[in-house]
């Protein structure tokens, strides 16, 4: 039975007109993987490059897995039942709640933590720790079940990522080390800018998604394009950062890499 789902999934998977989003993500992962392997020994041990590669590969994984779950509804139903959802066994929101709302914001905060000045590193760590603690308590008291829309968890994660971005820009303005460099030649600047754009532009659309899917599904579909395009752009930014050491781009040395 499982093999049958996989066969259908794979048969339809490579139809670019239907699955262009996933195929673009896969292409980005392949390019990212090649450049990650080509990284020098010094960069390969850097936490930053591992985190960037993790975000890239993990995003591609869960987006593909999410798509696969729409084909393998029995597996999805099993997982939903395990999480306590027997009412809507076709929902795959649990996957996006755990990944896009928890793991990815945490990873972005860890990446930004590497960019900010020493003064703010502690603050980002505190925010990260508070966020994870909050999520644990949040799940224990079952305020928003993991298989349904988790607006509070998403809003909190996105807000903390946005605060981390602001801390980066404050570092840029205040840290004497950052004052010696041209920000336009810093990859960290462009990446944080993309993260800022992604989370600020998708904040309202994601928060209103549940309401819109119920009342105006066509509008919700249209709004989802913002997520799709910005998601691709943010992964492209990651691929460019991983590839940058092997490309002939004139860049400045990042001041506070750990």
């Amino acid at each position: 039975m499982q093999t049958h789902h996989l066969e259908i999934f794979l048969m339809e998977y490579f139809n670019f007109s239907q699955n262009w989003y996933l195929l673009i993500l896969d292409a980005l992962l392949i390019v990212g993987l090649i450049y990650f392997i080509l990284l020098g020994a010094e960069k390969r041990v850097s936490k930053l490059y591992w985190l960037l590669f993790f975000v890239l590969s993990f995003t591609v994984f869960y987006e593909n897995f999410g798509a696969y779950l729409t084909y393998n509804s029995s597996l999805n139903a099993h997982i939903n039942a395990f999480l306590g959802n027997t009412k809507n066994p076709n929902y795959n929101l649990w996957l996006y709640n755990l990944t896009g709302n928890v793991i990815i914001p945490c990873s972005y905060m860890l990446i930004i933590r590497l960019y900010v000045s020493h003064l703010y590193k502690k603050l980002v760590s505190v925010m990260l720790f508070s966020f994870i603690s909050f999520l644990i308590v949040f799940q224990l008291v079952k305020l928003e079940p993991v298989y349904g829309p988790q607006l509070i968890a998403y809003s909190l994660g996105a807000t903390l990522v946005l605060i981390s971005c602001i801390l980066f820009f404050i570092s840029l303005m205040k840290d004497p080390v950052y004052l010696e460099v041209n920000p336009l030649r810093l990859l960290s600047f462009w990446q944080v800018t993309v993260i800022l754009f992604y989370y600020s532009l998708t904040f309202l659309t994601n928060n209103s998604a549940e309401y819109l899917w119920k009342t105006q599904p066509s509008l919700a579909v249209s709004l989802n394009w913002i997520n799709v395009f910005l998601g691709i752009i943010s992964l492209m930014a990651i691929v460019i950062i991983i590839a940058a050491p092997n490309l002939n781009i004139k860049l400045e040395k990042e001041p506070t890499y750990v």
Partner: protein
Amino acid sequence: MSDQEGQLITIIISGIFFAGLMSTFVIAIVVLHRQRQVQNRQKIDFLKSEYEKTLLNIENEIQQETLTYIGRELHDNVGQLLSVAKLNFSSQKPGKHIEGIEVLNQVIHEVRNLSKKLNLDWVELITIEEFLTQQLNKIRDTGFCETLLESDVILEELNKEQKLVLIRVIQESLNNAIKHAYPDRIEIRTIQQGADKKIQIKDYGIGFDTAVQSTGSGMYNLKKRMETIGGKFELKSEIGQGTEINLTLPQVNN
């Protein structure tokens, strides 16, 4: 126009507006960053010129003091020796001529020593510990007061400019103690506090009330001079309790 098209246009317009807002924010950050960069460069230039001015002043002061010292030595020491040599050579006794030659050799030796003082290369040749010992020996030899030097840590070698400033601050601190505090004892300690290495100069003199505003700028200048080399100057004093000066040395980057 269908409902969906209308909604799509609204989304596109609001998306463009919001993206424009974010772009404005990022551009504003870049512009502000540039402005701060310019301000920062101006501040660094100002500090550099202040540092150079301080160094020039210190070099002038040290040279002035050296000239005074050389003048005194030429008059009191070399002059006297040359007079003795003249007397010896004027004598008819052959033994006196040999004594005269010995005195002349002594004069040559004294003049060589004095010539070494004329440039500031001695600063590079002497360690801070040696300088402290020399200064305290000089005070003790005059019979002005008792002195003590205790070295708990080895002080790292500073660059010539930093050492010059530090030497001048130490000299000034000791001069102030001698001139104004009338101490019966002066103690200098080199100590380590956390990551900082310090030179502590303590005099058991009359002390003064630090709350009373001083009319001179001596202490302020010493503080500023220590700051220009990345160090610190702290002063504690009480009437009747003497004065303690702590000079925190600049961190040496290895």
